[in-house]
């Protein structure tokens, strides 16, 4: 039991410490792509926090997606998303990727990335600065950590509740219980 927990913890820790990204252009004007590639250069050195750029979607954890989704790239975007193995995350880079931006309501555009696949972090900007992209990945990892913490807290709270219930056992059980938070 403890072994399983230990391995689980190690995997959670690994997921936080080694986010591998894949970059996909869903129909950007190329401004955001240049900035995305820029943030991978030695100047910003993302390998410091374990970020590596992968070529294959099967190897990657985070889909870094730029641009509004055009009708032509829509199916490819879905395909690539489905080729990634769980747990997987999506970051939308640029105003176009968040909402459709200046391509909104264009005849060949379906809208932002979230009109096709679920998005975890939005980074607005036209074009986004590399610092913003790095901070987005950082936020995503923090969100992950908090989600794990919340889960643990929830489990602990449930355990404590169970214990108190069994302890009180028959006495006033109709006390007001705090509902476990559900931000995640």
């Amino acid at each position, binding site marked *: 039991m403890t072994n399983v927990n230990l391995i689980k913890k190690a995997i959670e820790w*690994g997921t936080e410490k080694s986010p591998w990204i894949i970059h996909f252009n869903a129909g950007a004007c190329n401004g955001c792509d240049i900035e995305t590639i820029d943030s991978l250069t030695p100047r910003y*050195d993302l390998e410091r926090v374990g970020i590596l750029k992968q070529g294959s979607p099967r190897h990657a954890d985070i889909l870094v997606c730029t641009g509004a989704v055009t009708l032509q790239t829509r199916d490819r975007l879905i395909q690539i998303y489905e080729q990634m193995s769980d747990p997987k995350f999506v970051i939308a880079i640029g105003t176009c990727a968040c909402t459709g931006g200046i391509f909104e309501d264009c005849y060949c555009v379906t809208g932002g990335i979230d009109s096709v696949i679920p998005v975890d972090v939005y980074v607005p900007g036209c074009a986004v600065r590399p610092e913003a992209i790095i901070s987005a990945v950082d936020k995503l990892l923090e969100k992950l950590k908090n989600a794990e913490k919340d889960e643990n807290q929830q489990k602990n709270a449930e355990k404590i509740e169970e214990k108190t219930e069994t302890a009180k056992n028959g006495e006033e059980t109709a006390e007001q219980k705090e509902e476990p938070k559900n931000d995640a």
Partner: protein
Amino acid sequence: MISFLKMLLAAFIFPGFLFLSVYSLVLDFIDRKLYARMQNRVGPPWYQPVADFFKLIGKKTLIPVEANKMMFRIMPLVSLAAVAAAFLYVPVLGQDAVFSFDGDLIIVLYFLTVPPIAAFLAGWYSRGVYATIGATRILTQLFVYEVPLFISLLAPTLIAGTWSISELTAFYAAHPLYALINLPAAFAALISFQCKLERAPFDTPEAETEIVSGALVEYGGRLLAFFKMAHSCELVLVISLFSAVFLPFMTGYVFADFLLYIVKTLVILLLLTLMRVSMARLKINNVVSFCWKVLAPVALFQVVLNLVIRGSLQI
């Protein structure tokens, strides 16, 4: 009974599988750090290879519908097993390997051809377009570097008169000056090892800017983790083999020899990393012509030289 236990301990703990995997993580980290420092970057933290491994272990394994499921699952393990088995014949602690017999150099060389073939089969049976191209490139490269590699590793045996790695090391440790004769072969072997490890400038099979990531493009999750582990273990194996054959300088004390082993492996790693940083990727036709036109003649020259020396010294 006790000797059997001792053998098990040697095979699985030290200097066997456990040592191999831990040291492979260490060398992997040092390699990446050196690479980063030479590019004027800070580089990854020390736990990066461990974190990558655990991350990959925890991911879901997806197998393409068209792939051959059994081959797809088995190949990473075959690769890892071959490397772990070969490592037992390479001396780490002093001059003696865990197991040794006359001819184990050949066995180790054959075990070393297993990981590329496993990668080829993995790519071939995952039936992706990029995977197939990567797989054929692996095979092309295998046929090319294997010749200079075999010749240059077998040349030192001509002087020593044995085909066992442990005895070879013992012979050259007793006559360190003879080891200097093998420098041309060491040069050829170092470059063919770089080619075997598919590191730049010979990373044509996994060229991520042209064919995504070669034969392993369909792999993900746990299976990819084992392939990566096999690859970094192969790095350790290759470096240890090189240091045993071409840098067989010993002090005679076990502990000092072990320290010396670590220093030697780090120096060789530095050379391999320098090669990786300073050169760009070759096209596959350039790899072929380089190996045939430069490396193979150098290795053959070494064979002739060693035969002449052996004849004139009457060893």
